[in-house]
């Protein structure tokens, strides 16, 4: 009895699935067959390749930006692109090796974790070119171009902006993992707040980072958005009204907490990092004060172009305010709320940093 019932059920569900499948086919499968024809060839033989770290190309952070840069080069320069994602640290070396074997002219690797593997492959294949994002070697390697950023410069402006905009006199930041590419944002941010206090004789407090002690709040990874939300909630409870999360996708946790606070009637704002959050995280548009941008896509495209034109060199590309490698994003929706005076001051700060009148220093800054 039991068996037959089960059989009936099974048959029933199979029939159901078949119906659904057939319907789907009927809906989509009635087109006309195209003429058989030839395929298009790529415009050039140049191949640009990219190996991600374990974050993958959809990490909403440096893997994604670098990948998009290479994809843009594919479109603009007509090169061939080969990409391979690493799932774990174990994949780095095989992936890189496979890329070299596949005949890549330039291989972009992303992140300090790939530093050793890139070095090994670069030394074993002196004729291939490499570029590594967010990492520089103590002693430069002939065929590896580091792409690094003095993010503290733009973060300084963000800190000044936050201090100048806060209503509660308290601003906050937190990081994903305590690594130099994260803490450099927090250092700059802290210095910006401090500079504002010195200039204006105010006492805006910063939560989440102590530059002297090089210690502060971290979520522990770049994945758990709920931890980011919790941290942000804590900051709000302590009176902060502007938060800058430096944690890739975990920033969305901060966004969620701030959106809730805004719905509850609080005047809160978010500062995004890496890309212009107004465009890349549009769900938080109405709390997005500004973003600290790190333009990795452009840099990758530039390096590919240089190499394609035969102008490869191993001098580090350092993104600064001066070359627009890092910058403060437009205020978009908050443009009217930022006082004109503050805007002029930010312009002045940018100019002073570029001229060297104002020094922004971080333990994590690229060594010139």
């Amino acid at each position: 009895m039991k068996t037959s019932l089960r059989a009936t059920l099974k048959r029933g569900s199979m029939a159901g699935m078949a119906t659904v499948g057939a319907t789907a086919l009927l809906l989509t499968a009635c087109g006309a067959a195209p003429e058989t024809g030839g395929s298009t060839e790529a415009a050039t033989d140049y191949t640009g390749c990219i190996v991600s770290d374990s974050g993958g190309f959809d990490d909403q952070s440096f893997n994604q930006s670098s990948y998009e840069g290479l994809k843009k080069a594919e479109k603009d320069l007509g090169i061939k692109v080969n990409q391979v994602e690493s799932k774990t640290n174990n994949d780095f070396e095989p992936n890189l090796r496979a890329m070299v074997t596949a005949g890549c002219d330039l291989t972009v690797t992303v992140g300090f974790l790939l530093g050793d593997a890139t070095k090994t492959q670069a030394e074993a294949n002196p004729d291939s070119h490499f570029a590594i994002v967010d990492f520089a070697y103590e002693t430069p390697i002939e065929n590896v171009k580091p792409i690094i950023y003095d993010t503290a410069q733009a973060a300084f402006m963000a800190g000044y902006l936050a201090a100048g905009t806060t209503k509660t006199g308290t601003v906050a930041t937190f990081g994903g993992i305590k690594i130099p590419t994260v803490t450099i944002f927090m250092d700059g941010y802290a210095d910006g707040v401090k500079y504002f206090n010195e200039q204006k004789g105010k006492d805006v407090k910063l939560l989440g980072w102590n530059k002297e002690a090089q210690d502060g709040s971290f979520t522990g990874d770049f994945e758990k958005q709920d931890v980011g939300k919790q941290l942000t909630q804590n900051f709000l409870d302590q009176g902060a009204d502007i938060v800058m999360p430096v944690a890739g996708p975990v920033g969305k946790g901060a966004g969620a907490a701030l959106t809730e606070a805004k719905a509850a009637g609080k005047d809160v704002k978010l500062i995004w990092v890496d890309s212009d959050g107004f465009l890349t995280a549009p769900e938080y548009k109405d709390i997005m004060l500004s973003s600290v941008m790190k333009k990795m896509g452009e840099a990758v495209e530039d390096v590919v172009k240089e190499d394609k034109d035969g102008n490869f060199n191993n001098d580090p590309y350092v993104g600064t305010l001066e070359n627009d490698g890092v910058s403060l994003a437009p205020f978009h929706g908050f443009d009217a709320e930022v006082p004109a005076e503050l805007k002029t001051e930010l312009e002045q700060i940018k100019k002073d940093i570029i001229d060297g009148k104002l020094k922004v220093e971080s333990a994590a800054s690229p060594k010139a």
Partner: protein
Amino acid sequence: MPEKHKHVADKPDNAQNANAPAEETAAVVSVDTAGGAMEPSAVPATAQSGQLPGGPDTLMRKIFTGSGMVSVLAVLLALIIGGLLIASTDERVSTTAGYLFARPTDFLGAVWNAATRSYIALFQGSVFNPRGNGLALQFAPLMETLTIATPLITAGLGVALAFRAGLFNIGGQGQIIMAGIVAAWVGFALDLPVGLHLLLVLVAGIIGGAVWGGLVGLIKARTGAHEVILTIMFNYIALYFLRYLLNTPAFQRPGESNPISPILDPTAVYPQILGTQYRLHLGFVLAIAATVLVWWLLNRSTVGFEFRAVGANPKAAQTAGINVSRSTILVMALAGGLAGMAGVAQVAGTEKVLTDGVAATYGFDAITVALLGRSTPWGTFAAGLLFGAFRAGAVQMQIQTGTPIDIVLVVQSLIVLFIAAPPLVRAVFGLNPRKKKSTPKKGSKTGSRETAQAAAGGAA
């Protein structure tokens, strides 16, 4: 020990004391979990009954009645579904699906093409690449497979050993991490002569893993806490401990503050056994040795017999005078030590540094490997090789055909799913034993054997 081992106590497939006719029923029933009639055990039946009861019977009989067939069929089924998934994401397939009725051959051809192209790339990336320059390069993928399989095999043996003693060891990840920490530290911080240094790295790693695993055994034996919960928590403790250490200067490179350790001294790393063009290192030989050791331990030693007895029925084992607490602690320590070898293979074999990704996903993959290998030492060895091949081939598959690496993870997960549900696999291949129960036992056995053979033939 009255209640502590209740969860594994009701398992019916006690291989040791069954006699011939009763034993066949037991085998079938245990593998099937009897359609829910039996109380489910913590460890899947297929994993516990490493060796199906059957004594001196033929290998053929074992293969076709046992869960070995289920393992093979599970892999096959997972590959077929994986192939369909690959096809479904293929551009050409979706274009041709648009005019399926106008020219169906295009569609079917595209499906076939997408799947086979990917699997050929997988094969070329894991076994033999005919486009390589010379024999050495043509077989480079195979060497890569063996390299990746090394930690999978040893960690898998750790899980398998614990399975046989009725313990579900999910702690491979933590044990690998602790071993990695200790081994790496010995490797980069100490300055010792050639030979001694590597030996110390190996011993330190094994001890590190053994202590971490043994602690779980100790807490379980003393307090009755469940090993699944313990091992999961121990994984977290190990991971966060590692992250903490990597933020201290002692574990960082001088002058840098990235969470990555210095490179291990050349004296502390495994030599590459087949020359520098391959990554294959001494760890693979040690993995073979570990497999032999575990086989000997389980099948030829008193301790191993005690493990299996405890795994089969702890209460009976207790009554028979076996010290269950001692066995629990010992088996977990040994499992940890084996996982520790995987940790050493990582830091001294392939990575040569310590990062927070040192264990990759080996601790969890090891569970799949042990399940697929039916918890037998050589089964685990073979399953480790298979998974190593998947991993090695995935790189080539991604590059040659643009198939996302996630497909390989999906195939791996499907394998677990099918192994956990033997009746499903049997039903798909038309050899469900439930049908046999109505007919005389002996006849139906041969019948099912023929079906199985037919299915296997069709598959090949």
